């Protein structure tokens, strides 16, 4: 092996990579030897909470994910549902909490970029963005800066890419003082016969890299996203990624143009842990091996090491497997859009991820050991007992009480936020922010999609089970209130440190409640994301399982909107 890997693996290094002693032993077992530094880096990201879902996987398996209209449930880049007429809606929600706390503008912006890629990777044109935001108390010295940076970042990215940001939710609570939540959701539309998946196939087929060049951005971002914060973490990790929405816009157009041909066998965006996780996941799903020649990776900086290339989180990149012989045609499309295109490897039958660099092998790992055989934990949990309802004395002055409520941070107008988002671009937004669910027409058809994100974290704290149920039900109500038929949900499960049984209990409780509501409403979960360790110095956030629901409306002219229409109209109250 070359000297680029000439780093002695010490216990400290293993620890710095977020791996436990047991996990390190497991790596040695899988390899039958000590890993080199590149391999250590790769195991550390693949086995991080963020990529491996090691604390949550056993529980996620219990969620209801099926219905006749579900075309693809959890496991792919995003979930897919049938919306009739041969069309599909593809959507997912994802967190970008930790990066947004460190650098609110870029953190939020790259969060939007990442979720957009998850959706157009599958062949969909993104048609709507949503976001669910939680900040600390308004008087906290950091809150103002974080709110304005996050909102500007979401707008900066979404507006530039030209996908309308049509809604979301925003809450303030002291539990988020040191751990804000930035959850972004994208909904896209595709033809059912043009949906793309990530399973690689065909020994000898070319593995192709497209998009931006690779730099040293966000190396260790994925492990960072799973490590609990300490006060000095802002100092320690200066490497946040900078997004380039302009390149993303070009990437969307180029990918959709290539997808209109029959050249693509498999495609996957490079998200957290970049090249590593995308290639490993594609190989794992297809049951094949990958051999990558790192010399061919387009590089933005000089002298990048294999470790850096494998772990870089540079944005706006995709990995594809093409049918043999289609490289030149594909390359022409990407060049037209002024994007990089490089064949960086091929599919093998070894079941291994093999990396070469300057003529030498610099990494050789069984794919299974990185994915299927990654550690999974059944963490102990205590579902906390239902908290007592507080008794609040009836206000003496009802007018004042109403004013206090609607003037409070959690109920006041969000106009300041959504006016910074282009919520009309694409010309199909027929229910703008400010109502219950947002409604966007399916371009060129009478149909529309209704979309809503909801959760009430204090309910989840008071009673995880009921809180989880309520969040699902609220999206359902918001969608039905517009005239839409709710079809499926995505989610972003934001919790504290899962190694604490009480937090794990909140997680399990919320999940059970969500599942129960989904079954009762015939409203399956088709995609989602888990963000754990949202905790600073031992104090965790309120349990926040954000739900994003999507429904369909056959005739968008029948839409119902929130505003009272005319004086003299009757007002009815229905429900219990």
């Amino acid at each position, binding site marked *: 092996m070359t000297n680029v890997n000439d780093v002695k693996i010490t216990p400290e290094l293993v620890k710095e990579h977020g791996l436990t002693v047991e996990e390190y032993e497991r790596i040695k077992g899988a390899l039958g030897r000590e890993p080199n530094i590149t391999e250590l880096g790769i195991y550390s990201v693949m086995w991080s909470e963020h990529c491996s879902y090691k604390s949550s996987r056993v529980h996620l398996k219990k969620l209801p994910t099926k219905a006749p209209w579900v075309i693809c449930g959890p496991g792919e880049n995003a979930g897919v549902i049938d919306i009739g007429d041969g069309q599909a809606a593809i959507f997912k929600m994802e967190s970008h909490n930790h990066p947004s706390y460190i650098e609110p503008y870029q953190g939020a912006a790259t969060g939007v970029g990442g979720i957009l890629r998850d959706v157009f990777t599958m062949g969909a044109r993104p048609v709507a963005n949503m976001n669910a935001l939680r900040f600390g108390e308004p008087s906290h010295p950091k809150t103002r800066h974080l709110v304005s940076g996050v909102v500007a970042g979401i707008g900066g990215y979404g507006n530039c890419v030209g996908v309308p940001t049509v809604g979301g939710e925003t809450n303030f609570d002291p539990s988020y003082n040191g751990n804000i939540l930035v959850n972004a959701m994208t909904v896209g539309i595709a033809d059912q016969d043009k949906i793309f998946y990530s399973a690689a196939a065909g020994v000898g087929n070319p593995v192709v890299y497209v998009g931006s060049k690779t730099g040293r951005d966000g190396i260790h971002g994925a492990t960072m996203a799973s490590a609990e914060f300490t006060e000095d973490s802002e100092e320690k990790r*200066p490497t*946040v990624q900078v997004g380039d929405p302009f390149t993303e816009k070009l990437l969307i157009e180029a990918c959709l143009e290539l997808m209109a041909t029959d050249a693509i066998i498999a495609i996957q965006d490079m998200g957290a842990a970049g090249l590593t996780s995308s290639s490993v996941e594609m190989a794992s799903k297809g049951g094949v091996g990958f051999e990558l020649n790192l010399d061919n990776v387009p590089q933005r900086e000089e002298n990048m090491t294999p470790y850096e290339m494998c772990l870089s989180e540079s944005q706006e990149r995709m990995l594809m497997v093409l049918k043999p012989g289609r490289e030149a045609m594909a390359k022409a499309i990407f060049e037209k859009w002024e994007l990089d295109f490089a064949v960086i490897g091929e599919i093998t039958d070894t079941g291994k991820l093999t990396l070469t660099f300057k003529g030498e092998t610099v990494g050789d790992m069984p794919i299974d050991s990185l994915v299927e055989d990654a550690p999974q934990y059944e963490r102990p949990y205590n579902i906390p007992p239902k908290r007592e309802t507080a008794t609040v004395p009836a206000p003496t002055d009802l007018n004042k009480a109403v004013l206090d409520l609607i003037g409070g941070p959690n109920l006041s107008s969000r106009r300041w936020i959504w006016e910074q988002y282009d919520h009309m671009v694409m010309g199909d937004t027929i229910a703008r922010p400010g109502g219950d669910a947002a409604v966007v027409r399916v371009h060129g058809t009478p149909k529309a999609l209704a979309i809503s994100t909801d959760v009430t974290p204090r309910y989840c704290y008071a009673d995880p089970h009921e809180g989880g149920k309520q969040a699902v039900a609220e999206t359902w109500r918001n969608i039905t209130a517009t005239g839409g038929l709710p079809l499926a949900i995505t989610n972003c499960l934001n919790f504290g440190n899962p190694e604490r049984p009480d937090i794990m209990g909140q997680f399990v409780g919320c999940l059970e409640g969500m599942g129960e509501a989904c079954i009762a409403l015939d409203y399956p979960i088709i995609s989602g994301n888990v963000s754990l360790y949202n905790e600073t110095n031992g104090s965790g956030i309120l349990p926040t399982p954000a739900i994003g629901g999507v429904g369909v409306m056959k005739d968008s002219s029948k839409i119902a909107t929130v505003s009272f229409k005319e004086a003299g109209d009757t007002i009815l109250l229905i429900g219990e």
Partner: protein
Amino acid sequence: MKARIHVTLKNGVLDPQGKAIEHALSNMGFGGVDGARQGKYIELDLNETDKTKAEAAVDEMCRKLIANTVIENYSIELE
């Protein structure tokens, strides 16, 4: 006293603006530009007359507002 502040991206941080300028120049037929980077240039008029004090104050302004030290470097000149 006047402070002239340059805020530039740290090494290795993606600079989409610089990249786009480079690209546009080459499209316009300007050859020979191997790299372009874009930063900010800020001038402040200060009513402080003591240079040491001014320097300290401007440094704090840079750290707290003008530069984003996660991704940017800054430099200060006083005159």
